[in-house]
């Protein structure tokens, strides 16, 4: 006899859930496939949309910031610089936005069948990964088009940055998914929050401008440290360092983040592991009430 919805202590329930999720990996695969299919169901262009969106952003920022504001003249290979940052950012927003609606959007399933509810946010993560892989193809094409390639020495940053991004966004996604069930405002809060967050991350501008403004022009070095504590800033900086060939040129070297990114990402990953654990426990606490709240 097995107890249904066994109450688990806050401290011990993580590993049983992980085992549960592993047992349902087949279903996770199906849900990811579902996620990808449903997103572009009945649209003519289908998957192309997931490429068009970042390309459009790229175009807008390249024109507005690169040409009109003149960043393009200062930062070499500005298009690719933008794209590497956007790559990390799109992955992040896809996961956060998708996770937030994942329980509410799957109400039909949540109310009818039982399986670990974590699978819904996780399926969003899987689908976002597939999208980012597609976008990476564009980046590779761009390397060939400009015939400039990133130096292999910095490539190990990518898996580290991806792991940090995954941990951070999965943790946040779990919390948002659960809280959105109880308070629908969360969807809108997330939209606004992501917009703010985007401008607090050095994606369309370079981090040296922030440093100059905060530490040289004003005596606010501590604020600059706060700025750099943003996990997404570190992840985006790592992406740029690893994937942006423009930084190898003399003009571009100034825009490379010169701090110890390995150490920073290491700390992020350690913190991310704890964060995911806490988030999963919070999620597990509230999931018993999902079906009746929806």
């Amino acid at each position, binding site marked *: 006899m097995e107890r249904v919805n066994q109450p688990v202590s806050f401290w011990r329930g993580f590993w049983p859930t992980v085992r549960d999720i592993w047992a349902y990996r087949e279903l996770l695969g199906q849900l990811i496939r*579902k996620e990808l*299919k449903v997103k572009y169901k009945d649209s003519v262009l289908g998957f192309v949309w997931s490429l068009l969106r970042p390309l459009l952003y790229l175009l807008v920022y390249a024109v507005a910031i690169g040409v009109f504001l003149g960043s393009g003249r200062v930062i070499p290979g500005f298009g690719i610089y933008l794209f590497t940052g956007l790559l990390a950012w799109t992955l992040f927003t896809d996961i956060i936005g998708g996770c937030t609606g994942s329980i509410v959007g799957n109400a039909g399933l949540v109310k*009818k*069948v039982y399986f670990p509810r974590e699978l819904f946010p996780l399926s969003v993560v899987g689908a976002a990964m597939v999208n980012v892989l597609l976008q990476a193809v564009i980046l590779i094409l761009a390397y060939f088009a400009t015939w400039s390639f990133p130096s292999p020495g910095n490539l190990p940053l990518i898996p580290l940055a991806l792991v940090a991004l995954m941990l951070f966004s999965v943790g946040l996604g779990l919390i948002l998914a659960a809280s959105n069930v109880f308070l629908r405002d969360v969807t809108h809060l997330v939209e606004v929050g992501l917009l703010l967050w985007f401008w607090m991350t050095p994606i369309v501008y370079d981090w040296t401008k922030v440093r100059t403004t905060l530490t040289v022009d004003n005596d606010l070095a501590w604020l600059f440290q706060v700025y750099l504590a943003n996990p997404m800033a570190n992840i985006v900086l790592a992406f740029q360092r690893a994937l942006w060939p423009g930084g190898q040129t003399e003009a571009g070297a100034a825009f490379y983040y010169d701090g110890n990114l390995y150490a920073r990402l290491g700390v992020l990953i350690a913190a991310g592991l704890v964060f995911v654990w806490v988030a999963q426990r919070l999620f597990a606490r509230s999931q018993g009430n999902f079906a009746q709240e929806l």
Partner: protein
Amino acid sequence: MTDVIRVHDVSKQFALRKDKSLKERLVNARRSRENAESFWALRDIDLTFASGSTTGLIGHNGSGKSTLLKIIGGILTPTSGYVERRGRLAALLELGAGFHGDLTGRENVYLNAAILGLTRKQTDGYFDEIVDFSGIETFIDTQVKFYSSGMYVRLAFAVAVHVDPEILLVDEVLSVGDEPFQRKCLDRIRRFQREGRTIVFVSHGLDQVRQLCDRAVLLDHGHQLVDGTPTEAVRAFRDLNQAAEEAEEENVDLAAEGTRRVTISDVSVADLDGRPVRTLPSGAGLQVRFRVDPGSRLDDWIVGVALEDSGGQVVWGANSDMQGYSLPELTGAPEEVTVEFPEVPLSEGVYQVSIAVASTGNTTVYHRVNRLATFRVVTDAYEDGAVHLRPGYRVGDRAVPRGGVPLESAAGER
């Protein structure tokens, strides 16, 4: 027999009002605290389900049947108490067992099978059988949001019975399918019973419960009233309905129609000796008595009486004219009318009496009262249908005497 599901003292509380957004919460902050009401959907339910048993859950809408099923299925968590169970479980709750509207039938079959724990390869093996059983081959590649509710249920049921579950929870879904499909489902459920699987079944079809289940549980406002044979539970449920209907009778005018040239009052049901009764054995006699107040002289009038069962089906109805009686002239003073039925061979159930007074040929209805008096018929016979018949059996030219196996145990083994 081993137990496969144990429900230990389960209670479930629901909050009645929920504010879903920050704005609502702020705007309703004061009211929210005032109306912070909750109600108990289930109170102290304690049940065990043996392997291979088929249990029917019956009760009014809102009595907690579906909630109990969802708690057993693990979809809701109980406020207190807990559920234990063993083995693979498939649940058909309300409409559809967890389909996603934007996916096609085929994709949903795979998704659903994966939810129920099948691998893709296993599903491949069952797929043709599932589609065949559901009978919707033509639409299998259509998105299920375009399905009719019947098609939806067909596919959901087909998946649920093909994934080889040890426990099947069915919540009032079969009534959506058409008759041939319902029969197919019932056959499948009977096969499940033979294979020794456990079924928990919510139904408003009391006859279906009597036919399929070997046990029934009656829930009322979250309380477990009866746990016994289907006949016991169904009888208790009908008692409950009768009580509720009698409570409604206070509201006389609600059910009345007609010009009120003549009025009907004081409707009662009595036995042949004129003593008011509520319950009578099948085959006994019955009098329907009421007062008519014509107000002034009236010579052209007829009386109609109809008996309806609890489903609203008229089991008998006729007026005095149709029966070949012409009623004597009324002087204007109130008069008591008695319609006597020497024998009422109805099957067990609750029946309601409607009475009308009209002009001959039914051109003007003077007064009509609907479902105003209620009586109950009980029998000790085990039978389905609307009437109580007493058959004799003959094999060759030997008449078979009644007796042998006692009735009570013969029914219990069904």
